[in-house]
């Protein structure tokens, strides 16, 4: 049914030629009969009246208001209004031939000339060049998120010192995750905005914590990644300290969350001093650290794993916040199926967390391609007679190839192989969804399970497969649908990586291993 609707934009001036163009473009593109946008002068009001388009809203408008009338199929009117609004907000096109704005910029400098408002460079080019582009960005006054790796410690220090002098920040190198002003950068999830400010020297660790917070109904204002080496004394936490300064000064941030591998001695002191300066509650978890005496003395709350870190921080801003699904008693692991544990991960921090948690629970020899206390260090391609935790995101697997979170084929092959391996009783994995990640990981896992079943003549069905899904329901695909698919395929899905690790270790030991609860 045809309908006439109007919108009045108060105190918005556009010249008549612009409005004529806009009117014809909007009519054409929205498929309504007519869009007419004019300043609400008396003369123009007469025109609206003569053409039968006058509305009470326009009659009441002032000459410096912009009046828009739409006549057409009522189902299309809303879309037409949205289109007009967008066209009004669009930057005017620069007509000059050859102007910088006409072209796709070929360099950071060119991009900045076309748009001086660009303030963060997201760099994922090869390391040798990435460090130069990062330096260019800092010189231009931009912050840097350096996803690229293969940058030497010395160059990282040069970049971070340079940024420090310029009052800018370098997240990375090898920074996989950040959320700035609600914008997910690189591997990140669509978590809600809120009062938590996070700093992490770890990509998947930040993803896990921000997602757990979101699932408890608590949002994240900023999540700064710093790169895995930032807390080493060689770097001295330059990026972490810069991030803390910003979070300290950000009035929207109510509580701080800090995570990473344990800092170097000197850096740990600097962080403590910085935390004392900032008058906001702070929560910390260092993966593999046991002694938090200094942090506690400084008034920080500490956590034994990423889930606890998220739960404590959530409780600070939303008392009583609970992780959905966490209070359900997990299905008991079948004691008959014990055997060796194979942890196969795409996320380095999640692998490390799982290995650390399982380390105290598993009996017998253990190995990892990460450095984990109590574990033999092996190459990811070595066989090992014992429990094994593999981070497939390590350089040995990714040189010249995309990260397994983006392209999980290799990870799936390893899962299938582990399920066919004699002696293995439990396979533990992470599934990290969200931006940057492969969109069909649960489906690929099920395909891998089917392949293993064929290859093993059905024997792989005897084995236990455990997973956690790091993500939120706003992600695409959403967390719940990926978890459901896995469950339907016989995978035990737990609410967090830490829980999945504990449960897997109990299963591998037939429930008889040392149990640290959870």
């Amino acid at each position, binding site marked *: 049914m045809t309908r006439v609707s109007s919108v009045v934009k108060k105190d918005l001036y556009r010249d008549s030629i612009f409005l004529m163009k806009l009117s014809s473009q909007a009519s054409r593109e929205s498929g309504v009969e007519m869009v007419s946008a004019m300043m609400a002068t008396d003369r123009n009001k007469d025109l609206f009246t003569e053409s039968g388009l006058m509305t009470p809203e326009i009659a009441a408008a002032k000459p410096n208001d912009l009046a828009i009338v739409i006549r057409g199929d009522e189902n299309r009117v809303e879309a037409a209004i949205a289109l007009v609004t967008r066209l009004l907000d669009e930057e005017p096109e620069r007509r*000059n031939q050859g102007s910088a704005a006409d072209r796709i910029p070929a360099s950071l400098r060119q991009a900045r000339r076309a748009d001086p408002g660009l303030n963060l460079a997201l760099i994922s080019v090869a390391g040798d060049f990435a460090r130069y582009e990062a330096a260019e960005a800092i010189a231009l006054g931009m912050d840097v998120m350096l996803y690229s790796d293969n940058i030497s410690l010395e160059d990282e220090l040069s970049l971070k010192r340079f940024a420090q002098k310029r009052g800018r920040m370098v997240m990375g190198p090898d920074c996989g995750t950040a959320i700035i002003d609600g914008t997910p950068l690189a591997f990140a999830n669509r978590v809600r905005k809120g009062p938590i400010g996070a700093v992490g020297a770890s990509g998947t660790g930040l993803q896990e914590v921000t997602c757990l917070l979101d699932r408890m109904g608590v949002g994240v204002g900023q999540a700064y990644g710093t790169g895995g080496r930032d807390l080493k004394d060689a770097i001295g936490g330059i990026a972490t300290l810069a991030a803390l300064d910003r979070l300290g000064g950000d009035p929207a941030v109510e509580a701080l969350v800090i995570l990473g591998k344990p800092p170097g001695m000197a850096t740990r002191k600097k962080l403590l001093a910085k935390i004392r300066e900032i008058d906001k509650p702070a929560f910390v978890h260092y993966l593999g650290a046991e002694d938090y005496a200094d942090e506690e003395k400084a008034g920080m709350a500490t956590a034994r794993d990423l889930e606890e870190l998220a739960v404590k921080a959530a409780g600070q801003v939303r008392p009583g916040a609970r992780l959905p699904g966490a209070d359900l008693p997990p299905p008991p692991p079948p004691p008959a199926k014990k055997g060796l544990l194979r942890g196969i991960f795409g996320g380095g921090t999640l692998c490390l967390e799982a290995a650390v948690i399982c380390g105290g629970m598993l009996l017998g020899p253990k190995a990892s391609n990460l450095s984990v206390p109590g574990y033999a260090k092996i190459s990811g391609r070595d066989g090992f007679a014992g429990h094994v935790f593999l981070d497939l995101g390590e350089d040995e697997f990714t040189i010249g190839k995309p990260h397994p979170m983006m392209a999980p084929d290799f990870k799936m092959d390893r899962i299938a192989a582990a399920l066919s391996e004699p002696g293995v009783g439990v396979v533990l994995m992470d599934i990290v969804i969200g931006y940057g990640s492969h969109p069909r990981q649960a489906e690929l896992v099920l395909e891998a399970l089917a392949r293993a079943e064929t290859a093993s003549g059905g024997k792989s069905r005897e084995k236990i497969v455990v997973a956690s899904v790091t993500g939120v329901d706003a992600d695409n695909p959403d967390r719940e649908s990926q978890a459901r698919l896995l469950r339907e395929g016989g995978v035990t899905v737990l609410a967090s990586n830490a829980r999945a690790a504990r449960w897997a270790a109990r299963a591998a030991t037939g429930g008889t291993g040392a149990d640290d609860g959870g």
Partner: protein
Amino acid sequence: MADKLKVAALGVDVFDAALEESGTPFAHIDWKPPAEGDAKLVNALFRLATECVDGNGESLVDKANAEALDRLKRARPVLRRVRPAHEVIEGLDKNTILHAGPPIAWEDMCGPMKSAFIGAAKYEGLAGNDAEAEKLLASGGIRYGPNHSHSAVGPMTGMISHSMPVFVVENLTFGNQAFCPINEGIGKVMRFGANDDSVLANLKWIETVLAPAIDRALANGGVDLKVVMAQSLAMGDEMHQRNVAASLNFHKAIAGEFHGALSGNPDGRRATEFVAGGNEQFFLNLAMAACKAAMDPLRGIEYSTVITAMSRNGVDFGINVSSLGDEWFTAPCLKPRALYFPGFSEADANPDMGDSAIVECFGIGGMAMGAAPAVVRFVGAGGSGDAYRYTETMREITVGANQDMPIPGMDFTGVPSAIDIRRVVATGILPVINTGVAHRLPGIGQVGAGIVTPPMDIMRRALLAFAEKWLGKGR
């Protein structure tokens, strides 16, 4: 972050979805490896960016280059006199001849350069004929060296000898002077290596009739060349390949006094037509002198990576870089990409020659192609859009725009000025030089026109030399 997040993305595009869906404005850069992927150069660029900085992280190089651009913009080149070269150029005795380009030995010179030397030796009466002149030059009886080392420039072969008249241009801001001979006109001329009696007679007429008349016409204080250049830029000249408006504007500036100076002179009409009629490139030599006067104060600025001279001797292309003083970085010239006059082809072309690329250092010529769309047809490109693109591209490698020289067709943006070797090496974009093409055989003259660039290798070597000199001195 106080300002709204706006992202420049370099590299993989898988992360763009998050930016799009969250409504974050972003630009995905069409990235290619800097410095054509050369690890050594990228390392030098990285270290310069991160180490050559002051306590606030401000680049010492950027600061020095800003100073260089500031000096360039503040230049006020004024044509003061026209005098015999030996009167104004230090050390130019009877036995010395100056040439275009970086230093070169007699035996290594190209054909046109050798013939021009022979012509100049005859002109100065050092030799009675070609054979005598050659013998004298081969035996070391004549001293020679680059114009640039004597505050001078000359087009093509660029001959300046003892008695030749030169324009004397003073940079009022800095008090330095620069010199350039008077344009000889077209056809058989010494700048293309011609040296017969008619060439020498033409030069003699310039020396005895034209030069004194122009000099007298300047008695009221001279001609502000920057004003002439800015006006002419607005009239479609870039002042390297096209000097139509500039030559007329120059004549306009001296018309009355010039007329007075030629009053009663039987050659008056010839002199007037020489400046304002027959030779549309008359102003080129004045533009060169003005740019040389403007560029010399940029020499020797610590930490500056700005090119202070680009010049060719018909064999080698050479550049000077501000903080590297008078050291030449040279490599064999490239042949121009050109359109040839009927009957000629690239096979006839001499390698690039002349000091005229000083105008590109200043920001006109090829850098200002956008001001002179008529010129762009010489490079085989048709539209004015192509001309604008040339100039826009040059903004990638220059320190900034010179607003005193605005281009009307490009929203009155200033010409791109002060070429930064860091940017040249990083972007792989070479400065574009508009040039005439000389025949490789002496005396035939110009056979085409087009564009040429310096060889990239000299930019790279200059950058590495710069890095070696200044790295570690910062902080």
